[in-house]
């Protein structure tokens, strides 16, 4: 039996009828049409589905859409403002921190969330925060470089 839910996604309110069994990840991709959130494993291990739920990073494959009723979600599509890439996205591009791009939305969202709460993370803190985001392509080195650079850019911007 379908239920009506109201969710705010990237600042826009959506009211949709969904079956309780629909995963948040599928809801974002198929009902809202935002395919930037990727599904890699559906058991909450790979992190490709990471989104912000009320500013906490969660794995949207381990969440039913109905659990998000009344809440705010930010997906990868919501990071750039007015066509300008977010500093985290810029840093990823500059440092070639993605190859096939499959894990990238999750990596960027998690990095973004990390820098919101810890603007100057050490390398160990970066690796710990991103531990649940798996990547087959890069070996993670350039991703860590990108997060360090994004942190530097953000702190320079604030000064």
């Amino acid at each position, binding site marked *: 039996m379908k239920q009506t839910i109201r969710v705010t996604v990237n600042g826009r309110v959506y009211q949709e009828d969904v079956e309780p069994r629909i995963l948040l990840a599928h809801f974002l991709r198929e009902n809202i049409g935002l395919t930037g959130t990727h599904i*890699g*494993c*559906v*058991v909450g*291990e*790979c992190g490709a589905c990471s989104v912000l739920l009320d500013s906490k990073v969660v794995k949207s494959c381990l969440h039913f859409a109905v659990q998000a009723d009344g809440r705010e979600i930010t997906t990868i599509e919501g990071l750039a403002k007015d066509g300008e890439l977010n500093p985290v996205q810029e840093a990823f591009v500059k*440092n*070639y921190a*993605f*190859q*096939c*791009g*499959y894990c990238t939305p999750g990596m960027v969202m998690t990095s973004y969330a990390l820098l919101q709460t810890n603007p100057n993370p050490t390398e160990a803190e*970066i*690796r*710990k925060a*991103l*531990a*649940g*985001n*798996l990547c*087959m*392509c*890069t*070996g*993670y*080195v*350039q*991703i*860590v470089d990108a997060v360090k650079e994004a942190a530097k850019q953000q702190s320079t911007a604030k000064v």
Partner: protein
Amino acid sequence: MNTQTLFNARYRIASALGVPETDVRIIQTAVGGGFGGKSCDDNNALVAAVLAKKARKPVKLINTREEEFLAGCRPRVFMKINVKMGFKKDGHIRAKELKVIADNGAYSAKAPAITGVAAMRHDTCYKYSDVKIEAKLVYTNKVPTGAFRGFGNPSAEWAVEQAIDLGAHALGIDPLELARINAAEVGYVSPHGNRVTSCELKQCLDRVEEMIDWKAKRANKQPNTGLGLACTVHVSGKRHFGDYDGSSATIKINEDGKALILSGEGECGQGVHTAMCAIAAEELGVPVEDVEISRADTDLTTFCLGAFASRLTYVSGNAVKNAATNVKQQLFEQAAEMLEANPQDLISRDGKIFVKGAEGKSLTVSDVARARLFRHNGAPIVGSGSFDADSVLPDATRFGNESGAYNYGAQAAQVQVDPETGQVKILQFAVASDCGTVIYPLGAEGQVEGGLAQGIGYALIEGLQIDEGRPINPNFSDYRIPSMRDMPPLQHTFADSYEPTGPFGAKGLGELNMDPTAAVINNAIFDAVGVRVKTLPITPEKILRALKEKG
């Protein structure tokens, strides 16, 4: 479609549907990494095609991750390898005997080729004079196997590089010295005919020696800590699909002066598109920002083989370079008319074309393209190029020269072993790669780092467990892959090298650094605690058991 080899996919689907190739159109979209797993061994595309034809509607078929493990994954070919090596007292390899038994799984796709590579590829790494190889491929009732980064080479190097290490210990020669004594060089021809046209393996050995501080660490050995080394060789394309290891590309110059490369090669994140743009830009003499590359589409691009065998930079790079040479020729002919000069006297630099020594009077590429087009009998500037490697298709006895160029590398690691739990910690990893000229540094670094990460996964973490033919850990909770915190401190560098037949001296890189990693780690563990695990993955449990048996 989910593929890294478009024209091969088109051929396969056309055959399955019983229609001519041109009735099938394959367009590559961004579908994630390939590593060999998307080189047309999966059945979903065929099933979808058959259903779509019947239904006369689009059909999409996507596996869940679990289904991918159970039916689609085409794991690496599992092999048992026996190595026997003979050395002279001074360390020169005298002979090598290899016995390989390879597990094909239920259906055969690339396993025969993979077994062949495992049997013979490593002969190009050191100066071998005599080799004897027997390789058997066996059908088993298991998940069918397929191609994955390294294509049999990781299995071979796991075995042979440890045999070399054992040889070093038996001879009382430092493993790095032993590698130096035997390393391949330019001009070497392997027993089956592989010709080495560029090789900086010795330089790679020098570099890792330096990066990991090999001599000092060996002289100052700490308890339960050890050093390991392995060398590696890989191809830059492989002559295998008929007598052709080539590529083709078309470049057109738009009216605004920007170039567009039309290529059907499969980019799945390796950065090859950027490399090809860089090659075209270099040849054309334009800024790299002025070169773009199309999506791969079998209707719009000419034939090429796709991403495998680390071929793209070398083979398609050369094709793109040739196309660019053709286009430059046309630009110069037109510009020569406009500048009233000889085409041979023209230079193209930063998007401007001028007579040598007279930079003040220049034309932009856009000026030239427009002038050629907007006139009586006008025509666009568009040119094609192709390249087929100067390799020799191995004959039925396996003699030939499988690739146009060979890339080399050396890896070294320092590990610490906990003797009570068997836990291995990699303290440091050093990698040196010879891929000729590095066309796109960031991309090349990504290939080294990514390859090493997969090598570490292969060595220590990953393992598909099969019970009565079925994978019993078909998800990422039970089948682990390396995460950010599993990666060791890494130093890596590229050798100063130049491949004369490569585009601006470049050759392949993509698979090189996955091949030797497991052997490096196991050699280091042996140096640390004196035991050698014989099966992959190297787990702490196996190490502990070996330590207990050792007493």
